[in-house]
C-alpha cells in the first residue's frame, strides 16, 4: 500500500503541524487528523498484529467499527491499550505504539503462529489443554490451569497501566424532552424539527465534528450545521457516545473531555459519564459498511470502501495508488470516481451483472467479477479475481489496495439494548430495526435508508413521531422505505475458493475465519449464541460490528436456512468501550464509599485513638500508650475497665425516637420480650425477630415518658431497623398512632463502664444525688444535666458486664461531654477504651453481636429464648418454633476454651468431633479474644446440641485456612461474673 497526503481536499488545517511518535518513530500530521489518518499520511501500513495468528494488520475502517488498528496510547500511568486509531484525534506530543507483537508490529516473532495456524482452529486451546488424556481423562482442569497463564500471555492484546490513574472522572446528569443520537443528515433534521417546535433537545455526536457520514463528503461544511443547531438552542454534545439505552428513556453517555488535548486542563475531568433522562429518544446512529470474506482478506491495504472516501475528503489522504474496489452494491461508485479524480488508478469489481451505473468512466468497471485471493503478506501485491459463479482464476490485478463493500448494516445496537430484536430485510440484505412501544424512534441509515433525502425526511418524520407521542402535536407522518439504491444489492458474504487453504477472515481482531464457522457447525455449535462463544465471533473490541452478519450468513448457508431463521445475537451496552474510571467517577480512594464519623471523631484522634472502619463508621479501635501494640493496648484497656473505669464512644449505635399514644403497643409487637409494663424511667434490652422467626437485631428501648421511647439499635442494623419500623407502620399496622424518627445523628453517646463509673458520673452531673444505686438502679433511665447545665440522657446499661452507664448528649456537645467524662475518669485511674477491648469485655460475658446474630440464628440458638414472652404475640412468634428451628441438634451459643490454655484460636474456626474433622463440622467459633480476666484465649460460637451435649468432651477446632488445629473445651458462654453481681453493684 502506498498512501499519501494530498495538497488539496480535507477538513484539516495544513498550517498547524502536530508532532507525534509511532513505535518511537517521530512523525507529523495536521490539526484535524485522526491518528489513523496521520499514520496513513506517513504511509504506515502495518499498525497491529492479530489476536491469535499474529498476522500483520492495517487500518480497516475510519470509525468505531475498527478491528485492526487497535493501538496503545500514552505511557506510564496514562497508558491506554486497545485504542482505535481511527477515532483517536491526533494531538501534539501523542505517543502511540503497536501491540500484541514482539519486538514490533513490522517484525513479530509471534507470526510463527500463522504458519502453524491450521492447529489453532476454534476451540484449540480447550481441546488441547483441558483434561489431557490419559492423565486427566474426562476430568480435571489442573493442566489447563497450568497452561492458561502462558496462553493468555501469548494471546493478549495491549496491557493496561498498573499505576494509579492520575486523571479524574465525573458523573453528570441532565434532563431533556428529546435526545437525538447522531448528527448525520437525519439526526440534524430531527433535532431542528423538534427544537423549532420548542422542545428541549440534546444532540449527541461521538465524533469531534457534527455531520456524521457527510464528513466523508467533499463539499460539506460542519461549522455551518453546528451554528444552525446552536442558534436553535440545541445542546450539542460532540466527542460524546451514547453507549447504552435503559428503561424509561434513560440514556448513558460517555463524553471524552480531554482525550484529544496535548496538555489536559487540570481543572477538567478526563471524561464525563452522563445519565440523561429524556422523554423521547431519536436514534440516527447510521450504518456500518461490511467487508467480504475471502482468502487473505486481511492483508494490510484492505479497507472498507467508505473509509477510503472518508480519508480522502476529511483528511486529504489518498489511501492507495492502484486500487481495486470489490462490491455488491451501488455505494462505492462515488468513491471510485473521487479516488480516480484524486489520482489513483481504480478498478471496480461488481459481483452483479445486470446493473446500470452512471459514471464518467474514468475508472474501469468489471461487472460479474469478485475477488477471491490476495497475494502478499505484509502488503498487497496483487489480487486474484474470478467470475461471480464458479470461483476460478480469470485474472490477477496488480494493486496496492483492495477496498471492500459487502453491503451496509444499520447500527441497530441501541435499540437492541432495549430488547427489541431487529428484523431481516432481504431486499437490502441487512437487519433493520423493528417497532417498539417505548418512546424510541429510529431514523436515517440506522433505519436502512441509503440516500440523503430519505434520511432527512426520516429525521423530520422521527421528530414528528416524538412530538405526537409527547402530546405536543398530532400530525401525520411517514417514513421512507428502506433502501434507496438504483440497482438492488446482491448478497455476497464470502467468496469461497476451495483449492487453497489460506485463511478467509470473518472477524478480523479475533482471527475468526470462515473455516472456524464451518468447524463450529460440524461440531454442533449451530445456535448463534453457541457459535459466538465457540469461535469468539463478535466478541472482540468491535463486538461484531463488521463481521457478525458474515458469520451469520455462513451458518445460515450451512444449515440451509435464511439468515433471520439462524437469528441474531443480542447487542448489549456499551456500544463502544467505557473506561472503568468513567464508571467509577469520583468514587475512588477515600470517596469509594461514604465515610461516617462521630461528633467526637477528632476528640478520639486527639486522645490517641487508632481508628477502625465499622459499617461506614470510623470508630476508635484502641488507644495505645507509647509503644503498645494492639493486643497490649486492648488487654490493658479491658483490665482497667474491670478494675476502675473506662470511657468509650458508642455514638455509632442506631437511635430512633418512637413517639405516640400507641408507642408502647408498637414496641410490644416488635420486640420478642414483654414491653407493655415497662415503667417510665426504665430501659429494657429487647430482641427483634423477623417475620420468619430469625433474630433481626437487638438493642435497648428507654421509656422517657408515657408516649415516648428512645430506641437504640446495633450499628450495623440501624438503617435496616428504621426501614422495618416504617414499613410496619405504613403498610401493616396503619391504625397505630406512632411516629418513628431517626435521631442517630442528633445524639452523641459514650459508655462509662467499670466499678468506678458511678463515681465518675457523680462528678460530671449537676445533681449527683440522682446517681445512687437506690435512685438509679440497673436499667434505670434519667434525663438530667451535665455540669454546665447541658441536658443529657443517662441509662444504667451494661455491655461489659460491669457497673456501667450510657450517656447521651446533643451532638454539638459531644466534645464537652468527652472532656468532662475523661477529666473525671482520670482521677480514678480510668482509661479510654476502643472497639477491641469492648469486644473482649462482651465476649467474656457471652454477649452476642452481629457476628453471632448473622441472620441464621434464632433467639433460642442465641441462648436468649427465656427472654421471649409467652404471654403475647409478636413479630416472629408464630414462626420461631417452626420445624427445623426447634430441632434438638440446633447449633446453640456456647463458650470455648482451648484445652491447652496457652493455645490461641481465630474466629471462623470450624468445630468438629474428634476423628470426624470434615465439612462444616458441628459448629463454629464466631468471636474470640484474649481474656485479661481469665488470662487465656476464649471464644464464643455455636455447636450442635449446645453446652449440655458437649460439656466434658474434647472437641477439635479446625482452621484449615490458617493451617491450624487445636483441642477445645465447651463452656458456658457467661465466662466472667455469670451471676451479674458487678452489674447490679
Amino acid at each position: 500500500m502506498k498512501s499519501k497526503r494530498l495538497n488539496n481536499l480535507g477538513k484539516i488545517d495544513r498550517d498547524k503541524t502536530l508532532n507525534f511518535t509511532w513505535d518511537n518513530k517521530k512523525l507529523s500530521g495536521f490539526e484535524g487528523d485522526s491518528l489513523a489518518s496521520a499514520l496513513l499520511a506517513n504511509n504506515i501500513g502495518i499498525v497491529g498484529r492479530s489476536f491469535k495468528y499474529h498476522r500483520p494488520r492495517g487500518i480497516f475502517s475510519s470509525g468505531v467499527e475498527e478491528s485492526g488498528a487497535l493501538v496503545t496510547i500514552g505511557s506510564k500511568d496514562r497508558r491506554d491499550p486497545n485504542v482505535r486509531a481511527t477515532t483517536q484525534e491526533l494531538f501534539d506530543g501523542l505517543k502511540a505504539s503497536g501491540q500484541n507483537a514482539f519486538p514490533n508490529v513490522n517484525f513479530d516473532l509471534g507470526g510463527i503462529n500463522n504458519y502453524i495456524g491450521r492447529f489453532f482452529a476454534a476451540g484449540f486451546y480447550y481441546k488441547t489443554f483441558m483434561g489431557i488424556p490419559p492423565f486427566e481423562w474426562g476430568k480435571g482442569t489442573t493442566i489447563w490451569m497450568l497452561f492458561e497463564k502462558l496462553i493468555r500471555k501469548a494471546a493478549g492484546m495491549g496491557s493496561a497501566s498498573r499505576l494509579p490513574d492520575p486523571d479524574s472522572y465525573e458523573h453528570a446528569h441532565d434532563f431533556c424532552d428529546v435526545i437525538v443520537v447522531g448528527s448525520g443528515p437525519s439526526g440534524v433534521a430531527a433535532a431542528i424539527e423538534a427544537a423549532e417546535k420548542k422542545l428541549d433537545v440534546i444532540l449527541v455526536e461521538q465524533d469531534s465534528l457534527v455531520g456524521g457520514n457527510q464528513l466523508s463528503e467533499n463539499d460539506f461544511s460542519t461549522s455551518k450545521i453546528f451554528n444552525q443547531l446552536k442558534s436553535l438552542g440545541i445542546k450539542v454534545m460532540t466527542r460524546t457516545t451514547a453507549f447504552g439505552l435503559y428503561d424509561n428513556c434513560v440514556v448513558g453517555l460517555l463524553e471524552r473531555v480531554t482525550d484529544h488535548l496535548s496538555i489536559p486542563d487540570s481543572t477538567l475531568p478526563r471524561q464525563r459519564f452522563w445519565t440523561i433522562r429524556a422523554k423521547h429518544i431519536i436514534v440516527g446512529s447510521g450504518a456500518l459498511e461490511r467487508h467480504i470474506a475471502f482468502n487473505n482478506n486481511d492483508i494490510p491495504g484492505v479497507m472498507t470502501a467508505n473509509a477510503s472516501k472518508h480519508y480522502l475528503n476529511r483528511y486529504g489522504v489518498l489511501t492507495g495508488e492502484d486500487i481495486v474496489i470489490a462490491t455488491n452494491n451501488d455505494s462505492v461508485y462515488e468513491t471510485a470516481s473521487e479516488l480516480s479524480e484524486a489520482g489513483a488508478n481504480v478498478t471496480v469489481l461488481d459481483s452483479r451483472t445486470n446493473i446500470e451505473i452512471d459514471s464518467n468512466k474514468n475508472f474501469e468497471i468489471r461487472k460479474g467479477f469478485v475477488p477471491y485471493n490476495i497475494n502478499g503478506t505484509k502488503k498487497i501485491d496483487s489480487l486474484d479475481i474470478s467470475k461471480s459463479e464458479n470461483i476460478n482464476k480469470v485474472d490477477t490485478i496488480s494493486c496496492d489496495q483492495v477496498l471492500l463493500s459487502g453491503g451496509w448494516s444499520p447500527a441497530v445496537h441501541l435499540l437492541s439494548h432495549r430488547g427489541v430484536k431487529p428484523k431481516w430485510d432481504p431486499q437490502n440484505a441487512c437487519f433493520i430495526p423493528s417497532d417498539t412501544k417505548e418512546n424510541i424512534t429510529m431514523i436515517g441509515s440506522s433505519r436502512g435508508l441509503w440516500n440523503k433525502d430519505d434520511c432527512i425526511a426520516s429525521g423530520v418524520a422521527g421528530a414528528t413521531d416524538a412530538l405526537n407521542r409527547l402530546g405536543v402535536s398530532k400530525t401525520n407522518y411517514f417514513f421512507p422505505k428502506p433502501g434507496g439504491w438504483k440497482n438492488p444489492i446482491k448478497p455476497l458474504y464470502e467468496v469461497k475458493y476451495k483449492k487453497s487453504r489460506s485463511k478467509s477472515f470473518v472477524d478480523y481482531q479475533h482471527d475468526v475465519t470462515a473455516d472456524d464457522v464451518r468447524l463450529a457447525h460440524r461440531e454442533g455449535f449451530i445456535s448463534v449464541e453457541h457459535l459466538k462463544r465457540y469461535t469468539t465471533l463478535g466478541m472482540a473490541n468491535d463486538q461484531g460490528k463488521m463481521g457478525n452478519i458474515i458469520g451469520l450468513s455462513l451458518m445460515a448457508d450451512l444449515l440451509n436456512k435464511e439468515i433471520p431463521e439462524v437469528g441474531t445475537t443480542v447487542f448489549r451496552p456499551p456500544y463502544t468501550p467505557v473506561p472503568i474510571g468513567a464508571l467509577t467517577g469520583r468514587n475512588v480512594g477515600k470517596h469509594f464509599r461514604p465515610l461516617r464519623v462521630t461528633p467526637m471523631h477528632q476528640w478520639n484522634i486527639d486522645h490517641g485513638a487508632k481508628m477502625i472502619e465499622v459499617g461506614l463508621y470510623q470508630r476508635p479501635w484502641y488507644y495505645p500508650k507509647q509503644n503498645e501494640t494492639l493486643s497490649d493496648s486492648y488487654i490493658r484497656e479491658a483490665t482497667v475497665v474491670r478494675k476502675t473505669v473506662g470511657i468509650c464512644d458508642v455514638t455509632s449505635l442506631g437511635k430512633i425516637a418512637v413517639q405516640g399514644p400507641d408507642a408502647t403497643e408498637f414496641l410490644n409487637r416488635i420486640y420478642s420480650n414483654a414491653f407493655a409494663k415497662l415503667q417510665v424511667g426504665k430501659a429494657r434490652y429487647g430482641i427483634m425477630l423477623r417475620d420468619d422467626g430469625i433474630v433481626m437485631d437487638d438493642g435497648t428501648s428507654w421509656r422517657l415518658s408515657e408516649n415516648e421511647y428512645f430506641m437504640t439499635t446495633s450499628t450495623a442494623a440501624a438503617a435496616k431497623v428504621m426501614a422495618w419500623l416504617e414499613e410496619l407502620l405504613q403498610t401493616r399496622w396503619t391504625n397505630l398512632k406512632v411516629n418513628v424518627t431517626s435521631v442517630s445523628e442528633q445524639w452523641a453517646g459514650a459508655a462509662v463502664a467499670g466499678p468506678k463509673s458511678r463515681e465518675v458520673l457523680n462528678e460530671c452531673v449537676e445533681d449527683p444525688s440522682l446517681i445512687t444505686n437506690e435512685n438509679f438502679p440497673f436499667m434505670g433511665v434519667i434525663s438530667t444535666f451535665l455540669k454546665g447545665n447541658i441536658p443529657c440522657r443517662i441509662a444504667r446499661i451494661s455491655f461489659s458486664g460491669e457497673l456501667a452507664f450510657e450517656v447521651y448528649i446533643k451532638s454539638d456537645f459531644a466534645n464537652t461531654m468527652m472532656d468532662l467524662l475523661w477529666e473525671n475518669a482520670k482521677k480514678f485511674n480510668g482509661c479510654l477504651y476502643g472497639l477491641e477491648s469492648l469486644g473482649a469485655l462482651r465476649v467474656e460475658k457471652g454477649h452476642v453481636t452481629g457476628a453471632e446474630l448473622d441472620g441464621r440464628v434464632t433467639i433460642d440458638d442465641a441462648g436468649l429464648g427465656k427472654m421471649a414472652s409467652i404471654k403475647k404475640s409478636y413479630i416472629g412468634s408464630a414462626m420461631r418454633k417452626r420445624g427445623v428451628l426447634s430441632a434438638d441438634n440446633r447449633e446453640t451459643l456456647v463458650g470455648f476454651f482451648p484445652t491447652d490454655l496457652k493455645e490461641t484460636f481465630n474466629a471462623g474456626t470450624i468445630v468438629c468431633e474428634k476423628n470426624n474433622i470434615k465439612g462444616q463440622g458441628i459448629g463454629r467459633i464466631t468471636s474470640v479474644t484474649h481474656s485479661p480476666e481469665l488470662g487465656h484465649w476464649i471464644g464464643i460460637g455455636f455447636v450442635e446440641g449446645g453446652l449440655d451435649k458437649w460439656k466434658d468432651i474434647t472437641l477439635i477446632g479446625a482452621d484449615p485456612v490458617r493451617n491450624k488445629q487445636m483441642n477445645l473445651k465447651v463452656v458456658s458462654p457467661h465466662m466472667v461474673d455469670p451471676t451479674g453481681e458487678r452489674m447490679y453493684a
Partner: protein
Amino acid sequence: MIRINCPYCGERDHSEFSYGGDASIKYPSLEASAKEWTEAIFFRKNIRGFQLETWHHSNGCRMWLEVERSTLTHEIKSVRPCHPDLQKVVENNK
C-alpha cells in the same frame, strides 16, 4: 433505569428507592398459626407481567409506596402511598 413517580417528591431514579416486596400480601395477625404465616412469607407467585410491589423511598421522603410494575418491561402503571390515610391526602391534592 426504572423511574418511579413518588407522590410526594416527584419522578426519581430507582436508586433512591429500596425494593420492599410483594404488596398484595395480606399479612396474618400476630396470633395466626405458623401455617398461615408460612403461606404469607414463603409462598409467592412469580408473576410475568404487572405485579403490585412495595418500594421504600429510602433516600427521599421515606414513604412506603405501592407500585404497579411490569416484570417484563419495567413499565410502571401506578404509584401510591401504602398508608391509606396518606393515599387519601394524595388523592385530595390531585
